[in-house]
């Protein structure tokens, strides 16, 4: 019984597989099966993205003591759909002097990698499109393609704000890729595998407990990759309005918008998979456990977004290279040392690693902020006084 529930999705898949192969020639069944799965994946991603958009708008409005969209459908649930319809019917404008082909291609180049990432993400035991043995490498490689689309979009728009946003995008995304990759290495070392399926299975204890420092670095770097506040420099509204996609309208803008949230969804799934134990949760079937974790991670992103102001360009780059990179290297060093000493990675190391990570973060943040404070002149102004 329990086994049936846990393996519900693979069982359905296998049944479909058997049914199609029963009366169709092999190649056609293969094609058809692939097509069906892709459609299922696309539909579920897009629906989750719509749910994310709704959650973000409603959630942030609750953080900001206001109601948020509540006119379209119950609790505003149909608002994202109304927005999507609006975007699709809007005029598609290419700015005068813009590069038509590149302008078009950019939207596609941003959207496609955002979807491709989902090919290797494990949703439940056995439910993964391609269980690549180098799944993590694939994710990182595909993830870094998006920046090309962003730059192309900014360049082809023939707009100075777009160009500025694009320049910031390249600098920021390339910089944050480095600590992000390095933070994943710790997980790979502990799990002894690059396959996401294996990494999930290796987590008797979620890796957030064994690799707290890695989690912090990954989360910080990933939110920079997603350009969410406090690192949303490439579309900083108060400075460069919308950054690289300021000249996009209609469906092309919708593609950028969808890609942003699809990336947020992908990062939520990756964080859940690498650090929170993926689909594993005691007493909860995997296809409920994973969504729970996804929405928890996304909620954390929302919380940060609605709380923090934005960093400046140079401070942001400094944070990547001077802040995150050294502790990412330190994390690899510590993990490697522990592996060497204990010939494995026993669970009780969590008791060592959590205080250690807290200590490192504390010391490092003190050291790092000296730089910022030294440029600022002195302490807070004394509200001093001339009494009448």
């Amino acid at each position, binding site marked *: 019984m329990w086994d049936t529930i846990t393996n519900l999705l693979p069982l359905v898949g296998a049944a479909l597989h058997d049914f199609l192969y029963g009366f169709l020639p092999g190649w056609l069944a293969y094609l058809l099966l692939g097509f069906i799965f892709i459609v299922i994946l696309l539909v579920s991603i897009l629906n989750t993205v719509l749910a994310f958009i709704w959650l973000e708008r409603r959630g942030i409005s609750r*953080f*900001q003591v206001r109601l948020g969209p509540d006119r379209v459908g119950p609790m505003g649930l149909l608002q994202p759909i109304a927005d999507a319809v609006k975007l699709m019917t809007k005029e598609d404008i290419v700015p005068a002097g813009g590069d038509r082909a590149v302008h078009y291609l950019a939207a596609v180049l941003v959207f496609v990698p955002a979807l491709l990432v989902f090919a290797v993400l494990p949703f439940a035991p056995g439910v993964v499109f391609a269980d690549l043995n180098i799944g993590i490498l694939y994710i990182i490689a595909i993830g870094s393609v998006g920046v090309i689309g962003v730059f192309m979009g900014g360049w082809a728009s023939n707009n100075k704000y777009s160009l500025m946003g694009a320049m910031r995008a390249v600098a920021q995304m390339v910089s944050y890729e480095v600590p992000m990759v390095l933070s994943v290495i710790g997980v790979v070392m502990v799990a002894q595998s690059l396959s996401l399926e294996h990494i999930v299975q290796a987590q008797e204890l979620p890796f957030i407990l064994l690799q707290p420092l890695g989690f912090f670095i990954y989360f910080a770097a990933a939110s920079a990759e997603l350009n969410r506040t406090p690192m949303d420099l490439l579309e900083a509204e108060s400075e460069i309005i919308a950054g690289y996609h300021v000249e996009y309208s209609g469906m092309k803008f919708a593609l950028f918008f969808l890609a942003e949230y699809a990336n947020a969804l992908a990062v939520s799934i990756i964080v859940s998979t690498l650090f929170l134990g993926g689909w594993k949760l005691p007493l909860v079937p995997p296809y409920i456990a994973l969504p729970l974790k996804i929405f928890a991670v996304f909620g954390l992103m929302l919380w940060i977004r609605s709380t923090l*102001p*934005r*960093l400046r360009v140079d401070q942001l780059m400094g944070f990547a290279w001077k802040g995150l990179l050294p502790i990412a290297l330190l994390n690899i060093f510590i993990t490697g040392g522990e592996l060497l000493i204990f010939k494995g990675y026993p669970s009780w190391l969590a008791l060592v690693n959590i205080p250690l990570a807290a200590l490192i973060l504390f010391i490092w943040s003190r050291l790092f902020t000296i730089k*910022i*404070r030294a440029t600022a002149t002195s302490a*807070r*102004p004394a509200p001093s006084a001339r009494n009448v």
Partner: protein
Amino acid sequence: MELRTQPFMVNIGPQHPSTHGVFRLRVIFDGETIVDLEPVFGYLHRGLEKLGEGRTYTQCLTLTDRQDYLSAMNNNLAYVLAVEKLGGIPVPPQATQVRVLVSELQRIASHLFAIGAFINDLGAFFSPFMYMLREREKITDLFEMLCGQRLTHNFLRIGGLSHDLPPEFMPALRALIDSMPRFIDEYDQLLSDNEIIWARSKGVGVLPRDLAINASASGPVLRGSGVAWDLRQADPYLNYPQFQFDIPIGANGDAYDRFRVRLEEMRQSVRIIKQAMESLPGGPVMTPDVNLALRLPKGEAYAHVESPRGELGYYLVSDGSINPYRFKVRAPSFINLTTLRELCLGWKLADAIVILGSIDIVLGEVDR
């Protein structure tokens, strides 16, 4: 191969989320660094000073609260003071005290808006702004109770007020003033020691004390640079000398200090309101027989008040007719803006937005 680079010019505004209205900055960038900056004014010019010359003194009152629409009470006050000074019109004590109340309430409302917009310019996703607006909303509700208007009140009259406080006003004000310090402390805790706000605004846009004085800056911009100059104490009007309050000043003159000064001034305003509430004299609020088609004696008068943005002055010249011969406004945010270029040179684009936000301009007043 050597890459050829050139600075490039960007128009920030007139339509831009952070220019607080239709204000345009012509900026020349070297990468992200500002090489040159030129503010371009006038997109909201309505010719209010000229319009005033064609209206009676009573009608001019409605022009004043459309200038600095975030502190309409202070604008009304400065104009009314100028007319009363020129005409020698007496004001009943109750009206004077209520004027203090409303202008301090307006100061809190305006500073809330300024701080919210400033943090928004730092890149926060509207959250601080919404919290500030929540508090400001209570004050606008009070004003609505007082005179039916939320933004352009037109509550003061030449020689007094349009009417006395409604009976439900004082309990509502008391409730607001009791809760306000708690909110101000909360914002202070949340914002003042925030690492990112420190990093973004400390040391940014330092306005030296001498430059601030020479540029005749006023208000929180001047006090942020460490000059304890507040017209409420330097050249007292109404009955401010009766009240105990401090003038908060900054140490460095940077954007952070200007923000802190505003935060601290809200506390002082709460203090003043508390004292003013205790000592309301009562009695009539309007001097009888002030003619609506008022004729002022020939001459000129200048009256200034400490508006939330600085020294707000009205200069009136009368030729004995029912219209002012000259209706001149000294708009504080216009004059505070004159140092913008010096403040921004060499900083990055993001800093220019922060500096502009810390000066706290209202375009209705800058362009008039």
